[in-house]
């Protein structure tokens, strides 16, 4: 039963990781809008390359 001493803390670490990932996703606003992002994939992105720079910047700014 010594294996438990390793497996149980391992499962606890996984649990902590899962909770951490979930909280990270919530904080990043992944669950704020469940409808609109689904539409993005349906259309070809025709935005000119110049917009790409601003998109990257948007990702870095988006931390509320």
């Amino acid at each position, binding site marked *: 039963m010594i294996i438990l001493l390793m497996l149980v803390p391992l499962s*606890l670490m996984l649990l902590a990781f899962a909770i951490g990932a979930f909280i990270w996703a919530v904080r990043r606003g992944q669950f704020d*809008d469940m*409808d609109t992002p689904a*539409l993005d994939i*349906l259309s070809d992105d025709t*935005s000119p390359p110049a917009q790409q720079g601003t998109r990257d*910047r948007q990702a870095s700014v988006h931390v509320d």
Partner: protein
Amino acid sequence: MQLEIDGEARGFCCHGCAAAAEWIRQSELGDYYRLRSVAATRVEDMPDLSGWDRDDLLSEHAVPTAGGLEMTLLTDGMCCAACAWLIDRALQREPGVFDTSANAVTGRIRIGWDPSRVRLSHVLERLAMLGYRPYLATGAARERERVAEQRRWLMRLGVAGLGAMQTMMFSEALYLDFGHHMAGATRDFFRWVALLVATPVVFYAGWPFLQGCWRELRQRHPGMDTLIAGSTLLAYVASLVETVRGGAQVWFDAATMFVFLLLTARLLEQRARRIASAQVDALARARPTLAVRECADGKRESIPVTSLQVGDIACVAVGDVVPADGCLLDGAASFEEALLTGEARPVTRAQGATIYAGTICRENPARIRITQTGSTTRLSQLARLVEQAQAQRPRLARMADRIGSVFVSVLLVMAVIIYGSWRLHDPARAFEVTLSLLVVSCPCALSLAVPAALAASHGALARMGVLSIRAGGLEHLAHATDMVFDKTGTLTSVQRQVGEVHTFDGMSSEVAMQIAAALERDSRHPIAQAFADIDTPLAAHDVRAVTGHGVMGKIDGVTWRLGRASFAGRRDDDGQLWLGDGHRVAARFRLQESLRADAADAIAALRALGVVIHLASGDASSSVQRLVRQLRLGEAHSRQSSEDKLALVRALQAKGRVVAMVGDGLNDAPVLAGADVSIAMGEGASLAQRAADMVLTSPSLLRIPAAIRLARQTQRVIRQNFAWAVGYNLLALPLAMTGHVTPAVAAFGMAASSLIVTVNALRLMRVSAVGASP
């Protein structure tokens, strides 16, 4: 209005809509039309947005971020996810905008822009051009708090879900040790680990229940939260004690599962209601935020409404909302007082008359000397009245509360008695039996029975175009026996149409209509709407509006006048619309309010559901009688004041009837609040919507019988759920009392029964999807 789009000619209602569609096509955002599921609203005239660039406004509502400023604002007209998609794409194309996100559910748009590269008003002009008029949100701090609150709930749910599953795993290991072969050290190890995982679930995820329990105890009014927090804490603390002293049994799994399941139920219910109220709130808060003040030297400046003071002179442009109460300077002007009185027709006010905040200026611009501002305006007073009326809870809701708290108190007393008697009988098992009793009887399925069904039906209702704002509305709607309609704007639409045309001197009625349509074509007056559908080959020149009289203009060299009889042809005024050249009359139009297309069908459907229809209108008896004949209504009351309507509702309630009220104006707001359940039309005044239990987002009256059908079905499901939950409790309680149920089995039984109840409730979503397509 025609425009060629993708090689196909399409019709548009106005230039604004055509321009929006043209821009969407040119920007290659045509996907919007493929993605959207709801037709867009009409593009209104472009509002003046220059006030949005003011520093004092930005400092209050925008927050600095890396690269510029960020602001959250509200908009109306966002009706599905495609709208949000379009707004996102359209704003991202504006140079200087680095971040946008639009949320169709809450009606909010977040914009991040670089003030050195682009002015906010320029960005918002694009928004307004597409038909989404921007409004100020409640301020940056409140907006952030709203989002943070929502995220906190989600995090609680995540922690509870993951934690409960893990605790279950560890407890399972203990349960599977049937023959007690597990070494004491291993057993304790599992218990301590389970304790570690269960602690955040109980105290972080379960915090809302603990808080609710504390509040209920302080108010000496034990309710559901007391029971939930009580049994959770009992299970947790007892398990803790057992873990420390190495006792026989722990119940961490029961505690965590309980928190998780109830949190899920509560979140579901909350979410459904928040979606409904967010849209209504957005409109209700959209009061004018800027006013134009005339300075001593005659110059005009745009200032926030809050800095407007008594004695200032405010200038109100045509189509703008009056910012504060005041008296009218200069000549007569007409105002639309729909927000205050529910009457859509503009009324003419003479010089010196009192003009109320919230009314809309029509025809000519006006100057107003401010007499009341802020919370002393009539609008604010009415809003407070509505809030007071809302604070009084209906009798049935109070009774349900009382029964709930009695049930909880009885159960707690019973638990103490059971504990006492088991102490005498078998002290070792006393605690376990008491806990089983609490867990089994804790009305988990009972508490899920209602919220799960409500959440499902709220979702179905929202898809149907009925927003349920207040809890309990659905229940009363299902029991409604009488429905009181307010005539203006509910059974009839606000738009008027030309009824009967009477011509003189050999003029044909077609020509008369064409002349009138040409004269009214560019008029903003509501009467012009009556002629909007008429195609006319004629063009009018030098069109001039004469306030309080009508319009005049030249067509083929002849000057025509359309308006009052005295204005058009020197006759005595009779309240009808006349066409003439100033000396002789040529035609007379009778304008009538058009009946909503589906009014008759809706009334018939309501009758089929056994609902008695009443009509209580503020209008004169002749127009009410006409409506009664058209719809074959039984009971109708004309010239009803707000108090009369409320008295009618009270009289019906005194006879034991459950009254549903359908209305729109603000003068109906006290009645809406006084009825058992109230429904406001989506196009009515926003304040009335706040007083209502439900809001129709689409103008179709057929949604009302559909909503009643759904409400009754919801009641059926709730009754089934209750029957199951009570049956289960009746079966489980004696077993638990006699010690035949372990806490784990109790927790499992409770979970299974909750699941059955939830699945039963979810049937509502499927069934109503069929009924939702009118």
